[in-house]
């Protein structure tokens, strides 16, 4: 842990982590109320990664992740309103209510989703890195995945291609020890995922996710490596999710004791303690908490009050508009999905 803590930074990171925590607790509640549907994968316990990761970046950089995406979206600057409205399926949501929990997007903040197919999004991260290199831009693209995703072909191909072309990508495995209900000793032939880096000739690092500063510093090194043109990196961050895989998972595959034990290393609690250690008094901490709380409550209310996209608006969002000369009749072509009965 860095011996000298920048207290202002720490306050900022703490607030972000606490916001994510509270945002997700409230979304779990809204899920139970039926206001959110489908799959809802909570990030609770892993917040130091999203926040530390975002802190390691410049505005030139991009982030792509899995369905477990609320934490990253918020850490990168997506408004709580846009995020919560998305969970509620409302048109004020970041993806206009079309994507939901698994498919949050925020181009403005360089957050490129929110992807549901395990492994498939990592090639997208390589693709974004490809673009950065193609254009001679300075940015780096981060591609996050779970430890369970490291066995799928998409992982291997994204890393292979990024390595051979020395693309500015950093692949980050958030190893939370479980792939749905399966502990890693039944999904991984090796304990240390970074042993795979050598096979790609890649920079690698492996560390725990309890201290947001450590996450930031170590990821910064990897990002700098990628930015300098030396090629991609593979980083494994050891973490733990406190909740089930998604809302429908009762989590019977692990004991409450195991979970309680891991909660002792809760990164939000660690950060709060560090603030106290650095003489931030309870009042100031409570004020930060209240501020975040206010943001979350406002987001819920805003989501509640927002409306849905209309059917017509939805139909307009299947194909992006193009120059008219490219179609015999663009409107007709794009309306292809318009009919239920006997339609094209």
């Amino acid at each position: 842990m860095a011996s000298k803590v920048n207290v202002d930074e720490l306050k900022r990171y703490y607030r972000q982590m606490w916001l994510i925590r509270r945002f997700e607790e409230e979304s779990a509640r809204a899920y139970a109320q039926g206001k959110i549907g489908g799959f809802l994968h909570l990030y609770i316990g892993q917040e130091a990664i999203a926040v530390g990761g975002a802190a390691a970046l410049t505005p030139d950089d991009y982030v792509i992740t899995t369905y477990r995406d609320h934490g990253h979206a918020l850490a990168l600057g997506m408004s709580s309103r846009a995020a919560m409205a998305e969970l509620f399926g409302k048109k004020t949501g970041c993806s206009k209510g079309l994507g939901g929990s698994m498919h949050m997007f925020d181009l403005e903040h360089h957050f490129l989703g929110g992807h549901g197919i395990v492994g498939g999004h990592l090639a997208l991260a390589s693709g974004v890195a490809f673009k950065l290199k193609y254009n001679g831009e300075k940015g780096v693209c981060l591609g996050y995945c779970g430890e369970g995703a490291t066995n799928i072909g998409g992982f291997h191909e994204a890393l292979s291609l990024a390595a051979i072309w020395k693309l500015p990508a950093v692949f980050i495995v958030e190893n939370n020890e479980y792939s749905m209900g399966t502990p890693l000793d039944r999904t991984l032939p090796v304990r240390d995922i970074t042993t795979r880096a050598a096979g790609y000739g890649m920079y690698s690092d492996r560390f725990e996710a309890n201290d947001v500063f450590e996450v930031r510093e170590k990821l910064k090194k990897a990002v700098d490596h990628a930015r300098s043109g030396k090629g991609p990196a593979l980083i494994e961050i050891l973490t733990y999710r406190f909740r089930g895989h998604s809302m429908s998972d009762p989590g019977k595959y692990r004991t409450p004791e195991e979970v309680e034990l891991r909660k002792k290393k809760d990164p939000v609690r660690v950060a709060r303690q560090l603030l106290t250690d650095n003489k931030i008094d309870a009042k100031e901490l409570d004020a930060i908490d209240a501020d975040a709380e206010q943001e979350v409550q406002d987001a819920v209310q805003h989501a509640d009050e927002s409306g849905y996209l209309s059917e017509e608006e939805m139909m307009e969002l299947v194909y992006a508009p193009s120059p008219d000369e490219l179609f015999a009749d663009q409107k007709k072509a794009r309306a292809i999905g318009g009919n239920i009965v006997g339609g094209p």
Partner: protein
Amino acid sequence: MRTIRYRDAVREAMIEEMKRDETVFLMGEEVGHYQGAYKVSEGMLELFGDKRVIDTPIAEAGFAGIGVGAAMVGLRPIIEFMTWNFSAVAFDQILNNAAKMYQMSGGQLNVPIVFRGPNGAARQVAAQHSHAMEQFYSQVPGLWVCSPSTPRDAKGLLKTAIRENNPVVFLEGETLYGVKGEVPDESEDEIIPFGKARIAREGQHATIVTFGRAYYESFKAADILAKDGVECEIVDPRTLRPLDHETIIESVKKTNRCVVAHEHWPYGGPGAEIVDRIQREAFDYLDAPVLRVSGRAVPMPYAHPLEERVLMRAEDIVTAVKRVLYRE
């Protein structure tokens, strides 16, 4: 007869066949310790042990391929896709290895494998998790494709699929797992043959050909229409490949009007294939063009009210039936 749920029917079929034949095993994500993502395989790990109920890492192409390889040399794998959506990453294994091995090897190696799992939209799981995959598999020679609508069909067809010597794509309804229905007593060992459509409801005014989730919407539609004095005949092909068009055509020859109702996207697929066969074989009997009711051609939206507008519903079938009856 007993009344059980669809998911239990699927499980019973697997258990009975695994008891009958040591070479049958179940492999997939979370099928064992977790008891199945949709609880279809609940209790099976305890019954058969982890030699025959095998949890896999996330590597669909890999474990589908392992299934094919094992089947080439005599085992009879049941490969569960947590949902059929994830078969997209294993598409090559199904298309190029499972379906072609028997032919490519000049008949030396057959592949007795069942790929199974929930198919179609669940509720609000959005664009990447809501595919009706029959549109990608029914056309492939070398495969059979089952789409059971009821618990009884699910059990009987799955038992057939497991005994079959060729690869079978077995599409369960993600939203049908909770549906209850009558199933023969456990002692009965009913197998349901491939290529035999079932007349699920008799009627003389119009034929509705349907399967999967659309089957239940069709019943609702038939009830609504019956109030207007319109009696629909509902035909469920049960297997999409082979497709029993004879039964369908016989019904159309009687009713002279037909609607095909399905969950998959409107372009092509089993829906269009059924229409093609009807217009070809019952041309002189048709009093109106065959209409289709399908899911809309959009990636599935997350928002519930929008999803409701994209999924096909009973009202759409009512509209279509009225239209083929020129009753609008």
